[in-house]
């Protein structure tokens, strides 16, 4: 581990500790409204100030971190697994299977997902607790967010399909499943990692957009997504720069994850 990686690892550890002990550390419950202090600046009572309804911003940030850092990677993992399985198999096997997978991917990319998501939301029952609605939102993202990754992974798998080491493995009688798991997947692992890390901030932002449409994390539960919705009012952010903290935290977390990861050269 180089020094930069160590710093990134320490930052991530600290954020995870904060996330785990959020319940103890927060100055106030995340949903409690201090109605005499809406949009307040930082103070000893509210170190990061309050939001438009007077809720403590630090408490909401810590709880929001817990929601987003647990569920966005879970959704990213699900979508990357689907993409890895379909993309690697399609690239390795080629032929009709590859054509079908890519056709389904193209079709899926062409579908108006926004309207489908709205339809799905309209069909869901209304009286679901906020936590269940959060899980449903991220599950939908995980199940529907694999298409772009499939194309990338499939192209990479196609690139190594005729490589010497695979030829050798095949000539040694290696079965397709073993080929996929023992030879193709390890070679594509950096790509899987990249797709996974790229998906995390993407899902966090998608959740923010879905919240606007009533599909994401519902009030009063915080998430990075709905905390980032505060940026709609840019002039308010300019006047209260501490509101940038959720964005800064998002950038730090994503960068730290990228740095902590073993680089492609190392994994190969």
């Amino acid at each position, binding site marked *: 581990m180089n020094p930069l990686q160590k710093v990134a690892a320490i930052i991530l550890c600290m954020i995870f500790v904060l996330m785990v002990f959020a319940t103890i550390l927060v100055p106030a419950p995340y*949903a*409690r*409204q201090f*109605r005499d202090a*809406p949009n307040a600046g930082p103070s000893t009572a509210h170190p990061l100030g309050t939001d*438009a*309804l*007077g809720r403590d911003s630090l408490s909401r940030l810590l709880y929001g971190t817990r929601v987003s850092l647990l569920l966005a990677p879970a959704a990213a993992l699900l979508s990357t697994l689907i993409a890895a399985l379909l993309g690697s198999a399609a690239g390795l096997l080629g032929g009709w299977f590859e054509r079908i997978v890519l056709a389904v991917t193209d079709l899926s990319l062409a579908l108006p997902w926004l309207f489908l998501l*709205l339809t799905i*939301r*309209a069909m869901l029952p*209304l*009286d*679901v*607790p*906020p936590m269940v*609605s959060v899980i449903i939102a991220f599950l939908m993202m995980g199940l529907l967010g694999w298409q772009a990754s499939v194309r990338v992974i499939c192209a990479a798998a196609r690139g190594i399909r005729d490589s010497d080491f695979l030829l050798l493995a095949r000539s040694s009688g290696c079965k397709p499943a073993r080929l996929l798991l023992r030879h193709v997947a390890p070679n594509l692992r950096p790509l899987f990692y990249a797709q996974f890390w790229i998906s995390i901030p993407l899902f966090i932002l998608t959740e923010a957009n879905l919240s*606007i*449409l*009533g599909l994401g994390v*519902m*009030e*009063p539960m915080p998430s990075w997504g709905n905390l980032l919705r505060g940026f*709609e*009012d840019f*002039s308010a952010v300019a006047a209260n720069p501490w509101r940038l903290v959720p964005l800064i935290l998002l950038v730090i977390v994503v960068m730290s994850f990228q740095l902590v990861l073993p680089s492609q050269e190392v994994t190969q």
Partner: protein
Amino acid sequence: VIRRVCVVLALTLVLCWPSFVGGESTSQTGGELHFCLRGEPKTFNPLLVEEDASETIRYLTGGVLIRLNRQTQVLEPGLAVSWKVSPDGRTIKFHLRSGLHFSDGTPFTSEDVAYTVKALMDPQLHSPTGDSFRSGEGQVDVQTPSLDTVVITFPAPVAGLERLFDQVAILSAHSQKKEMAVLGPFYVADYSPGSYVLLHRNPNYWKKDKEGKPLPYLDSIRLDIQRNRDIELLRFRRGEIHLINALDAEYFDRLQKETPAAAHDAGPGLDSEFMWFNQVPAAPLPEYKKNWFRTTEFRKAISMAINRADLSRIVYGGHAHPAFGPVSPANHFWFNAALPVPQYDSVGALRLLARAGFRLEDEMLRDSSGNRIDFTVITNSGNKSREQMATMIQQDLSQIGIKVNLVTLDFPSLIERMTRTYDYEACLLGLVNTDLDPNGQMNVWLSSAENHQWNPKQAKPATAWEAELDRLMRAQSSATNDKKRKSDFDKVQQIVAEQQPFIYLVNKDAMSAISPAVMGSSPSVLDPHAFWNAELLRLGADPALGAQK
């Protein structure tokens, strides 16, 4: 030679004189006013107007017999010098101004009024404006005893008849230009779909100012079609447009910080925000929840437990006022001033709930069968104010042990649940009200009406108080005496306050942005807030906003 030069100079002076002294007669000096339409005008036919953009054009171009003064809320003579409604409320007689002409020069006579009224009542035309006049079976009779007299007789009494003529722009019976020939202060000179509508000053407009100068002062109005409110505000701040007719509290505060002189808050408007519980018998809800929602004490307790003052102060930044009931205090005549002021009282709410068999156990409210009181409020997604109000209501009701979930839905899904499947528990929405008269609310209060949202389209009234609402609304709509109508509608407001089928939350203020360069503006609480006196507006220089004359 000198004499010849003098003659030439004199001739030149004589020839040029009209352009020096008479310039004002052909062009005004009021400049060109710019503002935005928030959508494409669907029609220029004033009888077919349904949406805001067309309504703006109708207001600025249409000449009406009687005009409602948006500031005093009093009816004033327009194209009619005087009018008289018969005691039975079926006939109205107008005396028209003589010597007037449409914008294309066609003379205005009683024939034009007769032509307009017949078109308005033509069932083939499906005029939304005409719907207000349909009082009963039978034909409308229009007599024109002279060129300046019109007598219109309806088959049945029409309540508030003369007020309805504020919406009827008179069409020309003879002009080749049809609806483009107008009697209002401006006429449509150019229209580029998706881009702009250009209105020019009507040289034949009848009104004059106190000094006898012809109105309007403005030479033209350019209405840019702009749906995006952020861009609209940005353009206002750059000085590219001179006014924004309706502003949200958030935009208002932003503007007030930058240009206090441009931000105008005219006080509580007619619009209200409210929530209601689903009382539809066929709704797919557990029976015990339906019982809560049908209990008057439950609804009243919820109403008492909501802190409306906080909603107004926090969500609307103080640009809203706690709502009393279905009529805003801005509606001077119809508002029932005897209604009790809504008070936040969570202790009183708990007392009321206890009386109805609810009990608070471990900070959770339960009904007499032990069911925990929780419900889901739906509202339309993307409306930040409503989401914030619902979140605040969540906290207010948690104080009395009620758990509230909030779900935002896209508008079509919301309407589907409200009007077809009835699969919801409570809903928070708002009402944009442009009509002062209670007849505009017939489709809300009659138990058979579609917009009787808590339990629409009832074959017969489900409760005694709804039957009484039906009776009172019908009585006021058929009465011709305003005092009697007011008395009936006061009782309607009283019943609504007692039963709380709609829990009124706030009345939003009427806010607008008007550049200091615009002279003669006087924002009103009634729509159009910023340009209701368009003929009296003119532009001066305002370098701060970059407005140009």
